[in-house]
């Protein structure tokens, strides 16, 4: 699952339109839009709001095998043109000085940039960094639930020394929309990475069927999970393996049967 996190609706709108996400009417803590294995949440402005939105969603979707996160929004810049898009490779929290390093997507079409996250808006731009109000809170929270490789921030320059368009909502949507194809490509790369990790997880249904076969201690469950993950990642069907376990009368015999299957399967490397 990919989760987009934007502070404002106008920042999220191009993504909502691009992926045809539908507003959820079941949630009221945050505005949430849903699509196929994708969510988009409107967090509100500021790093605390962004962190809260991530945590709220991570708790609600903790059954997901793996979640990728994308923070999309606008930023200020001392040197870049309005509409320029960047993938952040360094995020600095201006209050604490804490630095984070989202991992650049290999082959990304977006140039990288550092970004300073401020608690208050400012027009005192420095040359070498972008300015925003959410990235450090977003990444602090998202990294609790996913890895740096699955956590990305894309910022579009809306304000510089010459022009300030960040308060014009339509203009913000337009600036992000101008970059939507590149943003989409970055999202696809992230989705592909996330699928590699999610694909290794144990299917919860077959797992429930397995542990219902006997009473397992926690130590036995740990061993069972290792064996089951191996066999399920080796093109065995859960039905076939479960069928082989039907005659086993205890947790110990189930584990030893699965061990035998694993040993046989691994003989050829």
């Amino acid at each position: 699952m990919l989760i987009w996190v934007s502070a404002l609706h106008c920042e999220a709108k191009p993504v909502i339109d691009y992926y045809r996400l539908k507003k959820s009417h079941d949630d009221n803590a945050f505005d949430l839009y849903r699509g196929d294995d994708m969510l988009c949440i409107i967090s509100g402005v500021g790093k605390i709001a962004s962190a809260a939105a991530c945590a709220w969603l991570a708790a609600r979707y903790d059954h997901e095998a793996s979640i990728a996160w994308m923070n999309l929004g606008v930023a200020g810049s001392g040197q870049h043109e309005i509409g320029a898009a960047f993938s952040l490779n360094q995020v600095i929290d201006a209050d604490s000085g804490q630095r984070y390093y989202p991992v650049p997507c290999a082959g990304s079409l977006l140039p990288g940039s550092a970004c300073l996250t401020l608690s208050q808006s400012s027009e005192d731009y420095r040359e070498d960094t972008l300015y925003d109000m959410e990235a450090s809170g977003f990444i602090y929270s998202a990294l609790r639930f996913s890895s740096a490789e699955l956590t990305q921030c894309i910022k579009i320059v809306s304000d510089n020394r010459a022009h300030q368009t960040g308060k014009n909502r339509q203009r913000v949507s337009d600036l992000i929309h101008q970059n939507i194809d590149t943003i989409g490509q970055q999202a696809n790369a992230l989705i592909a990475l996330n699928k590699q990790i999610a694909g290794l997880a144990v299917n919860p249904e077959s797992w429930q069927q397995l542990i219902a076969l006997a009473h397992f201690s926690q130590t036995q469950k740990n061993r069972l999970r290792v064996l089951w993950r191996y066999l399920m990642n080796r093109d065995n069907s859960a039905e076939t393996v479960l069928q082989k376990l039907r005659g086993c009368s205890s947790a110990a015999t189930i584990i030893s049967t699965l061990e035998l299957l694993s040993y046989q399967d691994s003989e050829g490397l």
Partner: protein
Amino acid sequence: MVSCVYIETEIRDHPRARKLLERLCNLPLVEIEHYGEVFNPRAQNFRLQKKNPAIIIARKNDGHVLAAPEGYGLGGSHNYYFSHMLNCIYDCRYCFLQGMYQSANQILFINYEDFGERIVQVAAKHRSEAVWFYSGYDCDSLANEPMTEFTDYFIPLVASIDNAWMELRTKSTQVRSMLKLQPCERIVTAFSFTDPVSHAKLEHGVPSIAKRVDAMRRLIDAGWSVGLRFDPVVYHQDYQAAFVNLLDEIFTTVDPQKLHSVSLGGFRLTRDHFRKVARLYPEEPLFAQKMDLDNGIISYPLEREREMIEYCEAQLMKHIPHQSYHPCQWHG
């Protein structure tokens, strides 16, 4: 494919760092204060990172030369290791480095002079007794040679210290830089091999056996000391035939009489490393094989290990003189 380059701001103007940056100028560059900011955080996925690792250019501030773990080495009394890099460009599924660090990024330390100073001090401490310095513990000594120019600095240094010996451990074919240097018998380039089946299935990105054997031959022809490391020996249903094939391939090209040393040991990992790597690669048959825990080490059951080692030793002894053989001793 390397994803980006991180460099510690403080060393950006170091000549070795500048040279590296020129070479890596097409990659995104991110300045950091200390390599630990990128290398140490927990929220990293080693498996994903290994596919597109970053290069971190850094300075090592302490622990330049450390005592080698017990049982490591070729039987010498004084064994030390040092790491001018952390992590490896290759992706060998049995390697303990997968469980060693949070990150798969490759650190290149550029302050060779600090390593060199410590090597001189340690060698002086042992006066005239032989001291071994192992360079391929946390990395492949030569794999990044075109970038690191490791041999240009360390080989003349060690060669100039009469009681110092150095092992370069490698799976690479990067011997061109050594061929330009004056050979020294106290520098041993040890090539690691697994049998062709294990190589194909477990050693991702490693040059072919034939190319590595050729690199060995070129070094021997130039007068360098060369070693062979059959470590780890990995079990599979055809390991016996595959090991014989490997020996045939090596010894049709390499004169066994000219080998400095040969060692051999079964697959083993500490329990913590094994668990970590098995979690990273749940589909990997190597970690689904029958293993036992012995004194904190996970390895093949004693009977299987004995059978494997005895068989491989017997085959090996058909080729090499007994005095050049050093079995890996790790059982308590």
